[in-house]
C-alpha cells in the first residue's frame, strides 16, 4: 500500500478496496481474476471502472457484494472496508442485510436478470420487504412511486406487468428501481447499458446520474465503453489482467493518458476524424491462469522493454497531477494521430 492509497482512504471514503485479490479455483486450473486491487470511492462520487471482458472488473464488483460464483470463487487477499467493517470477513447472512439495502447492484442483461414468473412490481416489493417491515399496501405504494421516479409511464398499471411485457429500456429502469428503492449508499452498475439500444443507453445513463444526485449515492460504473464513462464519471480506473493500470480524474485521463493500454483504448474510440483507419490494440487478452512475472500488458505493448517483461511495474502517482496514478516502466507521451 503506497502513501497515495493511504491518503485516499480518508474519512470521506464510502468504500475502500485494499489489495483485493480474487481467484476462481476450478478443478483443473485457477484463474487469477483480480490481483491486488486498491480503490477508494468517495461519497457521491461516480467512479468508472473500465476494461475489456476478462479484466476482472465484474469480479471486483461481485467480490464487494460477496456474490462471487460459488463454490470456486474466493477472495484470497485484501479487504473491502465499508461502513467501518471489512465486507470480506462478514458471514453471508450479515452480507445479506447489506445487499439491496446499503449497497445495490444492477446487471447487464435486464431480461434474464428478472424472474419471468413474477410481476416487476412484486419484485420491487420483495426487495423492500427483505429489509423493512412494511405492510403489502405500503410497500406497493412505495414501489409505484419508485417506478414513477425512474420515469416508467403509467406506473400503477406497469406494477402488474411481467418482465417479458416490457422493452429492454423499461426493464432496465425496473431493475434500477429495484436496486435503489431502499436508497443505498453505493450502487454497483455492471454494464447497465451494454445490452440496450444506443438511443436508450443515453437515457439510462441520465437516469442513473439523476438518481445519484437525488439520493446522494456513490456509483461504481463498470463498462468496457470509454465513451460512456466520459459522460458520467468523476474519475476513471482502467483495469487490465485483474489489476488497475491507471486511475485519474476523467478529463485528465482523456487528455493525458500515460499507460499504453489506456492510450490504445482512447485511440480506439471512433471519431468523425478517424473513420478511415480504426486503431486496434494488437494481440489477445492475457491468460489469467498464470500470473505474469513482468507487466501483464507486455506481450501487446508497442513500447515494451526488457524490464517490462521481467519486473512487475508498481502503481506510481504522476507528479503535479492530483489523483492520477499508473503503472508502467516505459511510458510514452500520448499523441492523437
Amino acid at each position, binding site marked *: 500500500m503506497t502513501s497515495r492509497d493511504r491518503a485516499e482512504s480518508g474519512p470521506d471514503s464510502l468504500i475502500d478496496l485494499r489489495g483485493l485479490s480474487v481467484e476462481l479455483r476450478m478443478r483443473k486450473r485457477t484463474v487469477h481474476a483480480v490481483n491486488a486491487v486498491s480503490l477508494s470511492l468517495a461519497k457521491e462520487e461516480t467512479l468508472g471502472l473500465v476494461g475489456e471482458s476478462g479484466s476482472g472488473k465484474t469480479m471486483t464488483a461481485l467480490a464487494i457484494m460477496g456474490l462471487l460464483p460459488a463454490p470456486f470463487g474466493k477472495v484470497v487477499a485484501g479487504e473491502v472496508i465499508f461502513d467501518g467493517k471489512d465486507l470480506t470477513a462478514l458471514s453471508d447472512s450479515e452480507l445479506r442485510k447489506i445487499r*439491496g439495502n446499503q449497497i445495490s447492484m444492477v446487471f447487464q442483461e435486464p431480461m434474464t436478470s*428478472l424472474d*419471468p414468473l413474477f410481476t416487476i412490481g412484486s419484485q420491487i416489493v420483495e426487495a423492500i420487504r427483505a429489509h423493512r417491515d412494511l405492510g403489502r399496501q405500503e410497500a406497493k405504494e412505495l414501489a409505484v412511486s419508485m417506478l414513477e421516479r425512474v420515469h416508467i409511464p403509467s406506473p400503477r398499471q406497469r406494477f402488474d406487468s411481467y418482465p417479458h411485457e416490457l422493452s429492454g429500456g423499461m426493464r432496465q429502469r425496473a431493475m434500477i428501481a429495484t436496486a435503489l428503492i431502499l436508497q443505498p449508499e453505493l450502487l454497483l452498475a455492471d454494464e447497465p447499458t451494454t445490452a440496450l439500444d444506443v438511443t436508450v443507453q443515453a437515457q439510462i445513463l441520465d437516469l442513473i446520474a439523476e438518481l445519484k444526485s437525488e439520493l446522494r449515492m456513490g456509483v461504481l460504473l463498470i463498462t468496457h465503453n470509454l465513451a460512456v464513462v466520459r459522460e458520467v464519471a468523476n474519475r476513471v480506473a482502467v483495469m487490465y489482467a485483474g489489476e488497475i493500470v491507471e486511475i485519474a480524474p476523467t478529463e485528465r485521463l482523456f487528455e493525458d493518458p500515460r499507460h499504453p493500454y489506456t492510450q490504445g483504448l482512447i485511440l480506439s474510440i471512433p471519431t468523425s476524424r478517424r473513420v478511415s483507419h480504426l486503431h486496434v490494440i494488437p494481440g489477445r487478452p492475457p491468460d489469467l491462469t498464470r500470473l505474469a512475472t513482468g507487466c501483464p500488458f507486455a506481450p501487446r505493448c508497442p513500447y515494451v522493454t526488457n524490464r517490462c517483461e521481467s519486473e512487475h511495474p508498481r502503481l506510481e502517482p504522476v507528479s503535479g497531477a492530483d489523483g492520477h496514478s499508473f503503472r508502467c516502466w516505459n511510458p510514452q507521451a500520448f499523441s492523437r494521430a
Partner: protein
Amino acid sequence: MIGFILKRLLYTIVVMFIASVAIFYALRVAPGDPVNAILNPTAMEQARAALRARLGLDLPIWEQYFVYVKHIFQGDTGESLLTGKTIPHVLATYGLRSLVLAGTALLIAYAIAIPLGVLAAVRRNSIWDQAAMFFANLGMGIPSFWLALLLILLFGATLHWLPIEGSGDLRHLILPASVLSVESLAVTMRLMRSSMLEQLGQDYVRTLRAKGVRGRRIIWVHVVRNALIPIISLTGLRIGWLIGYAVIVETVFRWPGLGYELVDSVIRRDYPVAQGLSLLLTLAVLSANFLANMAYAVVDPRLRKG
C-alpha cells in the same frame, strides 16, 4: 389461445376416429369370436350361427363398423357380450378405478420426488444427492411387476400387513399404487434435480441475492416455481403412460381396473367392452396431454399472450 384449443380439439377428434377404426378392425381380424365365450362349447353349429347373425357378426367388417357408428349416433353404445352390462357402466366402473390407482400413484410419486429433487439440487454432490440419484436409477430399472411380487412376498405373505389382491378399501390401494409410482418417482426426481440445477445458474438468482432476499425464499418461492415448469408439462404424458402401464400392476395385484379388464375383454373377444375401454384409454391419454399443455400456459405467463 382459442385457436390453440380448437386445433387441439380437431386433433383429438381425428385421432379418436382413426383409433376407433383401428381398434375395430384389430379386434375382428383375428380368428375366434365371442360366440365361443358366450355359448356352451358343446352348442350346435346352428345355435352358433344364429347368435352370430343376431350379433351382426356375419357381416363384412366395414359394414359392421357402419352399424356400430350408426348405433352410437342413435345413443346406443352397446353392452358387454358376456355380462350384459351397458358400456357406459363398464367404462365408468373400471375407468374410475384406474383413475384412482393412477392418481394415487402420481400423488405419491410427486410428493416424494419433488422435495427430494430440490434437496438433491440444493445440496449438490452431497450424500443426499448421490443417494437420491442412486435410488432414482434403481427405480427406473426395476421391473414393476417384479417389485410387486417382492412386495407381495414381503408384506402380504410373510408379514401379513397388507392385502395382496382385489380392491375395496385404502389398504388394498397402498401396494399397487406404490409399485406403480416407482418409475414416475424416479423420472420426476431426476428431472426436478436437473431442472433446479439449470435454474440455479440463471441470472435472476444472482439478482435476487443482490437484492438481499433470504436464501430460503429464493429457493422455494422463485427457483422451485421456475423449475416445476417442465415437470408440469410432463405430467400429462405421465398420467397417460401410467394409465396404460397400470395394466401390468393391475394384473399382478388383481386390481380390477381398466387395463386388467381390457386385456381380459380382448382375450374373450367381448368386442363392445374392448372397444369401449380402448377408446376410453385413448381419450384419457389425449385429455391428459391436452391438460398438460393448458397447465403449461397457466403457469408460465410468457405463454399466455397469443
